[in-house]
């Protein structure tokens, strides 16, 4: 931080220094990636409205308080924002030293889920119940720690200048690091999260410059693994049914195909401008299950139409575009890998989530980043935004 000029510009007393420094030329504020920050904020606030629209009539969920979910979503956004600020404040480099601890904690948490402390929601045993009606979904945090852990392993020797690319041993170590929590999550079973993690691993490996053999090997192994999982019947019936319903939504319109069918009707009926916020009949009539979480995009599609749905996609696009730029422009491989991992995470999760509501992807329980209701997810994505900002803010130091 070269803040020398800012003192002159501001002319305020030293007690205001932190505040003014924030907006000085070349200051932290000036170097923040505002498009990402604003898009993330816009998505979170839009999400607040959509979650409110989806839940204000669901008395069985909101305990009679129609603002229950609205307030909590705002609260989550606030906490997420604070977590982001903290991450930026600490800086990703400082965090790098804490990665082993963070990784250890997150693995410990997902192991806790497998103990009687964990609870099951919608067939997946992925939650830890906390006192006060809160619950935690540690697999969301594992996504972050996998990225950080792999980045640390793969980038250390390259950033030190010892190697141009990570060697095979490092790659194996990194894969092992990712495999442990992935296996645990697979046991929950939370197939959606595992799929996201696989894509994250792929993105991380690509960005690390690991040899092509690893990349294609991993894709091949993933494919074979998927087939094996299918054939061995590791999947629960509900998971197979969801995939079957994806292939043919008319199969059982009252059963597993119901979600996809109603979601598509909701979105399709929105048209160009939508029915207007709080005026969607599908949403008001609660025809789409899980509408405040996994199917939150249907609210946008029905009530805000193509314009609203398109806006969400564009805002996500802005975040991803800027994140890609950050990955390309940072000088350290560590930062590049972390940014690329986040891109892979956000991109796949958003594509899978919106894609399933549009009927082009199978139904899995994944939240839409920033928009879906859910604390753990909200915190994790905002931490990721903090990491992206930190990478961008700290870039000049390597210069």
């Amino acid at each position: 931080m070269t803040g020398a000029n800012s003192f002159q510009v501001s002319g305020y007393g030293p007690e205001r220094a932190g505040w003014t420094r924030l907006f000085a030329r070349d200051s932290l504020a000036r170097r923040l990636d505002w498009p990402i920050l604003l898009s993330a904020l816009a998505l979170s606030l839009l999400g607040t409205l959509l979650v409110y629209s989806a839940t204000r009539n669901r008395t069985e969920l909101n305990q009679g308080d129609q603002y229950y979910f609205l307030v909590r979503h705002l609260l989550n956004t606030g906490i997420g924002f604070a977590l982001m600020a903290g991450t930026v404040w600490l800086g990703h480099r400082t965090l790098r030293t804490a990665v082993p601890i963070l990784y250890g904690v997150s693995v410990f948490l997902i192991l806790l889920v497998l103990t009687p402390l964990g609870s099951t929601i919608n067939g997946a045993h992925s939650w830890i119940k906390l006192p006060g009606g809160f619950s935690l979904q540690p697999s969301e945090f594992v996504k972050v720690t996998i990225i950080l852990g792999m980045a640390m392993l793969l980038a250390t020797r390259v950033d030190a200048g010892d190697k141009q690319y990570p060697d095979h041993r490092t790659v194996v170590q990194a894969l092992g690091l990712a495999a442990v929590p992935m296996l645990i999550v697979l046991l929950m079973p939370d197939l959606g999260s595992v799929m996201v993690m696989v894509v994250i691993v792929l993105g991380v490996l690509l960005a690390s410059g690991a040899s092509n053999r690893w990349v294609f090997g991993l894709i091949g192994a993933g494919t074979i693994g998927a087939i094996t999982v299918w054939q061995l019947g590791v999947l629960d019936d509900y998971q197979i049914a969801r995939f079957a319903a994806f292939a043919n939504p008319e199969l059982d319109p009252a059963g597993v195909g119901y979600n996809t069918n109603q979601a598509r009707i909701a979105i399709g009926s929105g048209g160009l401008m939508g029915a207007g916020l709080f005026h969607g009949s599908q949403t008001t009539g609660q025809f789409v299950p899980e509408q405040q979480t996994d199917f939150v995009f249907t609210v946008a599609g029905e009530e805000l139409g193509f314009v609203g749905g398109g806006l969400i996609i564009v805002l996500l696009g802005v975040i991803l575009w800027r994140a890609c730029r950050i990955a390309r422009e940072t000088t350290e491989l560590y930062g590049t890998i972390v940014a690329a991992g986040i891109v892979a995470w956000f991109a796949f999760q958003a594509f899978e989530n919106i894609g399933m509501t549009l009927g082009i992807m199978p139904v899995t329980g994944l939240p839409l980043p920033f928009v879906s209701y859910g604390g753990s997810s909200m915190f994790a994505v905002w931490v990721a935004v903090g990491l992206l900002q930190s990478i961008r803010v700290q870039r000049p130091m390597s210069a």
Partner: protein
Amino acid sequence: MTNIPETGRTPRVQIRLVVIQILVLSLLGTLGGRLWYLQIREGDAYAKEASGNHVQQVVQPAVRGSILDARGVALADNETRLVVSASRTDLLKMPDDGKAVLTKLAGVLGMKPKEVMEKVRLCDAETPQPCWNGSPYQPIPITDEATPKQALQIRERAEDFPGITAEPQALRRYPSPGEANTAQVLGYLSPVTDEELQQAQDTDSPYLRSDQVGRSGLERQYDKQLRGKAGVTRYEVDNLGRVIGQAKADPAEPGSNLVTSIDARVQRVAEYELNDAMKKARDVWDRNTGEKYKADSGAVVVMEAKTGRIVAMASNPTYDPNAWVGGISAKDYKKLTGKSSNYPLLNRAIQGQSAPGSVFKVIPTAAAVNAGYSFDGPYQCSSSYSIGGQVFKNFESKGYGPISLGRALEVSCDTVFYRLAHEEWKRDGGTKPKKNANDWFYKTAHQFGLGAETGIDLPNEVTGRVPDRQWKQDYWKANKGAWCKYGKKDGSYAEKIAYENCLEGNRMRAGDSVNYSIGQGDTLVTPIQMATIYAAISNGGTLYNPTVGKAVISADGKAVREIEPKAHGKLPMSRQTLAQMDEALEGVATRGTAAWRFANDGWPQDKIPMHAKTGTAEVYGKQTTSWFATYTKDYAIVMTISQGGTGSGASGPAVRNIYDALYGVADDGTIDKKNALLPKPQKSLPKVRTDGTITSPKVSKDPAKEQRASQKDETAPDEQQLAGTVASPTPENRDTRRRRRRNRGRGSRRMLT
């Protein structure tokens, strides 16, 4: 390290990052494209589906209008009953298709489980009644006679009876005022079928799934007016069916009331007398067949002569129209449609056709005058008439010498008409007809309205048949194949007939025209046709379309649409001929074949001039059909009894009793106005008040029995006389044309058909 650029990027990583970026953006592009496809391209279809998702219709059935008699007495109305019904859709969702629930329900209702299950199965080609003929999505009524206790049992334990409802419903009721059941005229209702639902979808009176549709009689003819319009409220509902808003509401419009010209009391008398006459006929010995008369069916029509309105119309055998209410039981359905019960659903007054016998003779009389013969004659009434060696005898082979056409009607002389018909047949060219054959006898029959519907406001009227040359040709064409296959020149009697028919069945032979001239052979008429004709003779020659409906009055009584009598023709007779015929028909009642029922039996002919014609028609292989056609200046009454005996013998007392009831005539000829049910046709319409109630007079428990009681002294001798006279007919009983002969001539063979 030297080839690491300033940004710290190796080209490999840089390229891969670009690939990732492109991949990510194409994923988002895919989402955008799909979103456009769903919302913009297919948006309308999904919008429609969404609205179907969340709109529920609640139907409030319209109350069906009542059917009233001329004075406002309800012949059909509605009553509230506790109806237990089952939803098929809910039952089929259960693992055992609801068997357990239905069995439990049967226990509560005190029915057999089998009975209940049969009621909820759907009708198809292989499923016998009882079965549900309506929409499978409509709750199916299991009983409409649930007690409040049973209904409570079901409603309080709703969780034990999923898919079963017990609710009060307005049900059709046929109250039979004064025991008049009027079954065939009223008709019946049954649930709307899927097919009808679809057909009526885009018309101005679409059906609802819950609708009951009139299937016959007035219920069918005036279905649209009676049905009204069901109210539909459309609610927006959520996924659990909870109402979140009201979209649209059309209130129910109750159906209109139909005022008929039927008088419930006269109807009762007519039904009672018809049934009584048939019962008595069954005790009478038929000399020709060597057994008692079967009297298997009969009909009577009481018509207002000046308007064609129906005051009473009875058909026997009959049934209880209430059997259809709330779904018909298997036993009842079998009974109503079976041969053993002789099809009581048929309204024989408009759907029963048979040879008219001598009541037909007014037509050849008019035809002869039109053909140029003088009414006064004289014409030879010989005991028999022979054509080419074939002998056609007069009734009882009795001759009357030279007489006028009027006298020929009075004494029902067949040979007079044989001769005239034969002459005309010859003039028209015989078996090789001239190009411009006059065919007076056939043309006149058509002009009298035979061979065509009278246009009564009841469905499925039959036309009868005038066996003219055209018909013979058509009939031969249709049956030639079968005749030629079956016929043998030297075979049995039937085979010989078929052989002859095969060769020349298309020709009008002399015997055909002669038989036709006295209403025999292939001639077929319905009672309503005869009533229309005799009413026309009474009113000066106007053939009215008979009507049962007199007015349609809206439920609040504000809108009244009267149904005006319409005419469909004039009798082809001059005023003078009509007057002469009228006089002759009066002669039948005073000194002819019906005198023993009227003038000679205390009828006040001077006060109420009675006109009559008797008929006894022969049907091949059956006993004779009794016909009796009568009229006064206000009414025409026609009665017929199949296999019942002679015209005045079997039907005479019944018709006389109906007149006695109408005018309040005692057997000694005194007229007591107090006993008269309807000395003048009812003119004014009953009043429907704005609240829907109807002012109507009280009808006593059984007008027929009361009428009989008022003449108690005469009942016994009447019966004696009937039995006695038919066994050995008095000279006046001239209604019978001829008896079966041992040696059958060609002419009589025509009766085969």
